[in-house]
């Protein structure tokens, strides 16, 4: 059976901390600043709640990109959460790089509650990057594909 060439619609997961980035995403929404619908946001209390396992899980399940947004360094609602997040992600990303997942598929951005514009710009550029990278085949679990 010939494989049908489907239009590439990436799956992108965004982890947003409740206090800054999620509010920034809300502001992008209320300011009607568009970004592609491929981005789906998961609310977490703080960027430090994002377990690297969640990101691996997303890739395993077929996500093409994962972006994590938190408060700006120094502005974390829980004082230090985003510092931990930053370290964890640095480590995770270098390991992803090692196993051959393109570094553009993951990103950490600091978006404050007042930065709706930055949120939408970040999402636009991230989605654009994912489009240019194409489908993620490296980590995807074949059993999860239909």
């Amino acid at each position: 059976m010939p494989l049908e060439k489907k239009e590439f619609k990436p799956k992108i997961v965004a982890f947003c901390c409740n206090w800054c980035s999620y509010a920034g995403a809300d502001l992008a929404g209320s300011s009607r600043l568009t970004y592609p619908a491929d981005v789906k946001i998961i609310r977490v209390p703080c960027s430090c709640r994002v377990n690297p396992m969640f990101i691996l899980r997303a890739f395993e399940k077929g996500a093409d990109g994962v972006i994590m947004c938190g408060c700006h360094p120094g502005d974390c609602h829980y004082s230090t959460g985003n510092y931990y997040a930053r370290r964890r992600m640095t480590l995770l990303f270098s390991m992803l790089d090692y196993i051959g997942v393109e570094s553009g598929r993951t990103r950490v951005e600091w978006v404050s509650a007042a930065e709706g514009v930055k949120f939408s710009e970040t999402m636009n550029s991230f989605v654009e990057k994912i489009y240019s990278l194409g489908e993620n085949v490296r980590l995807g679990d074949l059993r999860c594909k239909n």
Partner: protein
Amino acid sequence: MQRIGVFVCHCGSNIAATVDVSKVAEMALMEPGVAHAEDYQYMCSEAGQAKIAAAIQEKGLTGIVVCSCSPRMHEATFRKAAERAGLNPYMVEIANIREHCSWIHKDMEEATKKAVILMRAAVAKVNLNTPLQAGESRVTKRALVIGGGIAGIQTALDIADAGYEVDIVEKTPSIGGRMSQLDKTFPTLDCSACILTPKMVEASAHEKITIYTYSEVEKVSGFVGDFTVDIRRKARSVDMNKCTGCGVCQEKCPSKKAPSEFNRGLNTRSAIYTPFAQAIPNVPVIDREACIKFRTGKCGVCSKVCQAGAIDYEQKDEIITEKYGAIVVATGFDTIKLDRYDEYAYSQSKDVITSLELERVMNAAGPTHGHLERLSDGKAPKEIVFIQCVGSRCADDRGKPYCSKICCMYTAKHAMLIRDKYPDVNVTVFYIDVRTPGKNFDEFYRRAVEQYGVNYIKGQVGKVIPKPDGKLLVQGSDLLDNRQILKEADMVVLATAIEPNPDVRKIATMLTASIDTNNFLTEAHAKLRPVESPTAGIFLSGVCQGPKDIPETVAQAGAAAVKAIGLLAKDKLMTNPCTAHSDELLCNGCSSCENVCPYGAITYEDKEVNDHGIRETRRIAVVNNALCQGCGACTVACPSGAMDLQGFSNRQIIAEVDAICR
């Protein structure tokens, strides 16, 4: 298995115009655990909430997903509605299909698809939700106000009048703030000091108010209802209890070369000083950098002349620790530095001044004793040019992108006062727009033009050139006449942009209050909660939240006070039940979680556990639910996966990830 009800809101046309809501409801019924799905015009309305309650009771629902606006908007509303219908409020989840979907996407098919996915993620999460019980924490019935300007004073007075203790922390030696530097106030031309000083006196005399001047907030810990704050009382070198405020020390002090902060550096003050005559408290401080005794060890004149023996060169900074239930930030503003606006020759000529400096020049207690004169040669000016929007409304990084709001009005005030007192002086104002929204504001501006003959020219000034004869050549454009103007002036006054006090960033970090790129503190909701920070227990008063004039500041100060009183009036607060907890069978007592916890909420206990029939005593992490704020740092640090966060558990988030990637 849960029995989940999915409620899709149209939000009028806000959602329904771009998302096929009935399709979302229809798709919801195919999700595991969903027992009921419906859509309705306004889910947050009385009728919408009644629908939720009815469905809970009729269908025996155990979980709710509301597809609507942001959870930051109405999560509390729907949780309360569920609670009233007998469901645990934490069994409610929101799928944000407005801010994150309908408002940002245009294509109906695409938006509907995304809304369905967001709904699925929420359903997947609710399937794993467990009922949570909120705990209680106590409220310390004392408020802290950071900043002793008109905003801080008004907030403190209002809180104190309601019967609660208030502390004001002020960085400078006296309360009063910017308003004490103003000469007159618009639009009534009241004398600023005459309306401010009674309030300062009232605050200092109020039995419920403690004022810490020359003090700074050093450290903040805790949370709403129970903040612990370290306040650094800088060494005044003067004993506040002994000093009588006679002022002899200031008179006799031989070091008189320090620039006066109060007069914006236009004249000098002694090394031992009170910022201004009506200072509260009327106790001087020694500026140790200017003081001869501190620099060379020789002098001590103030100590000799002080009859009360109040001078204490050995005094050291003192840290006091106090508990507060609520904190109000009232840190105010400063004018921006003009070093990047050299075209206006501010640094080249003494006769180019900012409006705040003009305020001091016009004031009887100012450097010229209230006479309008050129600061370079003391001559009376005949031609004065005002330049508006210096650094305001600026798209590049030289200035500020916002309108400073007060400049149009104070310039009209200055122009009017000058024309009134010195009718032979010509006043020209270069403006881009005159913005006078406010009660009696436009009438005031029109009076300046019609009655006082102030010459308003639409157009900005390009440069100011100091001439060898001391005059200033002002080159501006007149856009309405379409010509370039070259005008000789004796004085140029710059309506300099205002910016939040630079210290506010440090304070926001300590309070974990969010702050925007312009250093204004962010409010919890731009329209509906304008005086509260998103961080519970932190309230905003005055210009730290955005540019404001005095009446607005006072109004906001009162509003912030009411919000703080509302908090202090409660005996107990419900705590966030979304806290961490550790699985004692998995925990190996490694201390990783304790190390990352910012609240010290994790301790270790030796506990007897029953691990599959083996009874033994193990060192196990225990979370103090009153201290835990639910950030989740520990959950990721835990190597054995014993730590989990209620409400945002590993399984729940993974379920969401799976649902999105499905």
